[in-house]
C-alpha cells in the first residue's frame, strides 16, 4: 500500500461545493509539502467512473471527500453518487476517510467501519452548515466568515497528513472549533460575528469519529 498518497474529491457545481473546492487547496498544499502524491478528482472529474478507476490504480491511505451527501451516500459533480453504502463502499477498505459532506457518517460511515474494514471514518451525522460573505464568493479563500467553518474541518486532513492518528485529527478539529466559538463569544467580537456561533456549534456536534 502506498501510504503517502491522498485522494481528494472536490466538485464545484454550486456555491457550497465551490467553497469546499477552494478550501481544499490549503490541504493539498500541506500534502504536497509533506511529499504526498495527490489524486485530485476536481470539478467534472469528481464522478463515480473516475473514482473507481483511481481506486483500482492507486492505493491512497487517506480519502478526503468534499461535496453533498446523505445518510448512505456521498456525491460528486452535479450530485452524482460517488459512494453508496452496500453498493461500492468496499472501495474504501483499509483507508482513513474524512467526508466533508452532510449526514454520511450516520449510516455510510458506520457501515464502512463495522462491515467494510475501513480504518476510520470522520464525518457528520447532520447537515454541514456553511455561512459565507456574499461579497467574497469570487474569492472564497479570502472569506473570513467561511474560514470559521472551513479551517477547523481542514485541520482533520492536515493532521492526518502529518502522520497523526484519526483520533488526534478529530480531537484537533474539535478543539479548533471550540477555540473559534470561544473567540467569537468574547467581548472583542461584534454582534454580527457572534451570530455565527450556533452554526459552528451545530457542525462541531455533528462531526464524529467512527473507528
Amino acid at each position: 500500500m502506498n501510504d503517502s498518497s491522498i485522494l481528494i474529491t472536490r466538485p464545484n457545481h454550486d456555491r457550497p461545493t465551490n467553497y469546499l473546492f477552494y478550501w481544499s487547496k490549503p490541504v493539498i498544499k500541506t500534502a504536497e509539502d509533506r511529499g504526498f502524491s495527490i489524486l485530485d478528482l476536481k470539478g467534472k472529474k469528481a464522478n463515480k467512473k473516475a473514482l473507481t478507476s483511481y481506486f483500482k490504480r492507486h492505493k491512497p491511505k487517506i480519502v478526503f471527500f468534499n461535496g453533498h451527501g446523505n445518510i448512505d451516500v456521498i456525491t460528486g459533480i452535479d450530485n452524482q453518487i460517488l459512494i453508496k453504502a452496500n453498493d461500492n463502499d468496499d472501495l474504501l477498505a483499509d483507508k482513513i476517510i474524512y467526508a466533508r459532506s452532510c449526514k454520511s457518517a450516520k449510516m455510510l460511515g458506520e457501515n464502512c467501519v463495522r462491515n467494510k474494514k475501513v480504518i476510520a471514518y470522520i464525518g457528520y451525522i447532520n447537515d454541514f452548515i456553511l455561512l459565507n460573505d456574499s461579497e467574497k464568493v469570487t474569492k472564497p479563500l479570502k472569506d473570513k466568515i467561511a474560514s470559521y467553518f472551513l479551517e477547523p474541518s481542514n485541520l482533520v486532513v492536515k493532521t492526518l497528513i502529518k502522520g497523526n492518528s484519526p483520533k488526534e485529527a478529530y480531537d484537533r478539529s474539535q478543539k479548533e472549533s471550540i477555540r473559534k466559538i470561544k473567540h467569537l463569544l468574547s467581548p472583542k467580537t461584534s454582534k454580527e460575528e457572534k451570530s455565527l456561533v450556533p452554526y459552528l456549534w451545530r457542525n462541531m456536534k455533528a462531526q464524529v469519529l467512527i473507528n
Partner: protein
Amino acid sequence: MNKKTKKILNEEELIQEDMKLLAIERLKSIPSNYQISVGGDGSFSRDEAIENVKNDSEIGKELIDVQIEFLRDMAQGELYKYE
C-alpha cells in the same frame, strides 16, 4: 379530543410559535451580506432564511433547531465541558 388534550396541543403550538419567533429574531442579527448553506438543500440570504422559518419549510425547521439546540446547550453549560 378531550379538553385536556386540546389544552396540551395548544401549549405545544404556543411553544413552537415562540421558538419560531426566537429563531427569527436571532436570524435578524446575521448581517444581510451573509449567506447560509444547509447541506444540499440550497443556499439562502438572511431574509430568505427568515422566510423559510416563517413558512415552516424543512430548512426553516432545521434553522429553528440549530438556534434552540445552541441556547439549550449553553444554558446547560455544555461549552464549559470543553475547558
